[in-house]
């Protein structure tokens, strides 16, 4: 086998420079964009035009920035849903499915309760129902994770596929409660007027954006300042220490997962009171729940940074989605770039945590010391 004459050595950094914390994510995004540019060039598209279009449609126009903030409403919620669980090493990657259930729960409340309550009361009820449905969808994975240790990664994911079938079922089955009875074409039944919010002016941005900001702030406070948050931190750092300190890891696991599920469900309900007004079956192709995982990872599960990464990532998505309209670049390049940015960010993370240098292998003394 070929012997490589060099060896990469990782030295743990004592303290991470603040400069690096900012520089590394930025460099990761740039590296991913550079990689994307090479790919675009190779496949015959102009990277500069593509990126200019993406930036303009994502951030630098009225429609662009408002659409970006509108999308970030959902992604901030699914982002904190993922980060909240991830920080305790609970990998709820089924936020996507919990979001579907949030849509169903929200639409149920919006249709069943009718026009009896004022909007100011109705919208919170719809949002709560969505959150409850999301929490219900993660209940089984949370229960078996905390009692039996069943991998929540696989169980939450399997439930996402089941949730997608459920969405199709409630829309495509004739006579379904959630299906619009007046059209032959299968589509969702509209929720009551009192359950729909108005967007700001001519934009597609809804007041739920501020709800998302408040929730992100509130959870940040819970994690940093409350006893519950303290328990989460102790369990995350050392399950053994938590055990000896008498912290019930099982109960905390259960609660953290339920809250995580509720947040993804809330994201779904926000679509009901906002842009959709009904169950839109195309939701199962949009991947807002999965995007939340990317948002969380880019923010390194820091609940305070989620707002920033959520907005940036939404801009990338909005800009990428418009590519199909403004140029002939396939929409999928946007998805690919999202993945690439995340991959580069993960690689870049090593440069933040470690001091990396390359040494020659035949230099025995260096090798011994470094290893």
């Amino acid at each position, binding site marked *: 086998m070929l012997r490589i004459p060099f060896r990469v050595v990782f030295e743990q950094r004592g303290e991470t420079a603040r400069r690096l914390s900012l520089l590394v994510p930025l460099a990761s995004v740039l590296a991913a964009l550079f990689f994307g540019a090479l790919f675009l060039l190779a496949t015959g598209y102009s990277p500069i035009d593509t990126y200019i279009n993406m930036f303009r449609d994502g951030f630098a126009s009225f429609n662009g920035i408002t659409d970006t903030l509108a999308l970030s409403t959902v992604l901030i919620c699914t982002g904190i849903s993922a980060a909240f669980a991830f920080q305790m090493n609970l990998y709820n990657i089924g936020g996507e499915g919990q979001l579907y259930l949030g849509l169903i729960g929200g639409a149920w409340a919006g249709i069943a309760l009718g026009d009896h309550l004022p909007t100011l009361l109705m919208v919170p009820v719809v949002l709560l129902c969505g959150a409850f449905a999301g929490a219900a969808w993660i209940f*089984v994975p949370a229960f*078996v994770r905390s009692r039996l240790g069943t991998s929540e990664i696989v169980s939450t994911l399997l439930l996402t596929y089941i949730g997608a079938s459920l969405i199709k079922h409630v829309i495509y089955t004739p006579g379904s409660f959630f299906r619009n009875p007046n059209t032959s074409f299968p589509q969702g039944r509209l929720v009551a007027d009192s359950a729909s919010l108005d967007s700001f002016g001519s934009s597609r941005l809804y007041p739920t954006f501020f709800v998302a900001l408040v929730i992100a702030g509130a959870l940040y406070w819970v994690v940093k300042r409350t006893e519950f948050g303290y328990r989460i931190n102790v369990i995350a750092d050392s399950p053994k220490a938590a055990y000896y300190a008498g912290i019930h890891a099982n109960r905390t696991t259960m609660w953290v997962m339920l809250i995580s599920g509720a947040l993804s469900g809330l994201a779904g309900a926000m679509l009901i009171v906002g842009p959709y007004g009904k169950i839109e079956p195309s939701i199962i192709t949009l991947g807002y729940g999965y995007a939340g995982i*990317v948002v969380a*990872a880019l923010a390194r599960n820091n609940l305070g940074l989620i707002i920033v990464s959520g907005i940036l990532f939404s801009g990338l998505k909005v800009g990428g989605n418009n590519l199909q309209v403004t140029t002939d670049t396939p929409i*999928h390049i*946007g998805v*690919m770039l999202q993945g690439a940015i*995340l991959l580069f960010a993960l690689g870049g993370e*090593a440069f933040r945590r470690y001091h990396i240098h390359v040494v020659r292998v035949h230099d025995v003394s260096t090798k011994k010391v470094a290893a």
Partner: protein
Amino acid sequence: MNENIWILMSGDAIAIATTLILAALGALFTERSGVLNLGIEGILLTSAISSFLAADASGSVWLGLIVGSLIGALLASIHAVLSVVFRANQIVAGLALVIFGTGLANFLGKPAEGKTVTTVIKPISFGPLSDIPVIGPIVFGQDIITYLAIALAIVASRYLFSTRPGLELRATGDDPATVDAQGLSVARIRIRYTMIGGSLVGLGGSWLMLAQSAGWHQAATTNGLGWIALALVVFAGWRPMRIIFGAVLFGFTLQLPFTLQAEQITFIPSAFLEMLPYLATLIALIALSRPGSRNLLGAPRALGTPFVRDER
């Protein structure tokens, strides 16, 4: 009741099981070395479309299968570098690979949309053996990759449990510090098996495309088989022989909706049948867990944790 349909179904279930066996074996090799690669679904998709493009351009199925396997190894190497060299969070890295792979596959698949697979893998003919009623079409009606997949699982079992490299592989997943003390490179072993695993997953994806699908249907081509394969590894307790059994079982549940539809048995809603394989996996997963059962099940003890010599 039409017997033929049930016979056909058994054959189809075994056929679907082929993708599952290959993908799950790939995941098993990766996980036995201590690396958790959740990117299986992304690898399946990308290798599926790569094999289609290669087979379509060259007219050779075999070239398609080879290209698909190589692409699988290539994508897995990204995961290997990130998780072994850069010590990134393997769960997030795997998911990133799924997102990246899905985007890449759909991007590459753009020109393939609407095209049908013209070069397909044909079942092997065993002459009179294939004509035996019931058993013939099921046992002797498959193509070479299906037989290869079953043979691979058997060989993998022998390799894992009765050879020295197999022992080293298992040790790397259970106790990397000991392997390191033996003078073996944990990083090299992990990268190697992550890539071998990726190529097996890639072969599964290519086969799914070239032998099972009529054409490229974006993400619907794999439709979550990668995730089922990951659950299958847990179900099989990280043992190759049990993967064959589990894969056939899941193949049946995946095939059941189509058979029932053909039989016009409609009292079960189709949405429920669609959920069945996922539901079955979930129930199996829960049924197999007991408090602290991770080791009882046979999960590699160091699964998902990077090995750093001085942080032992």
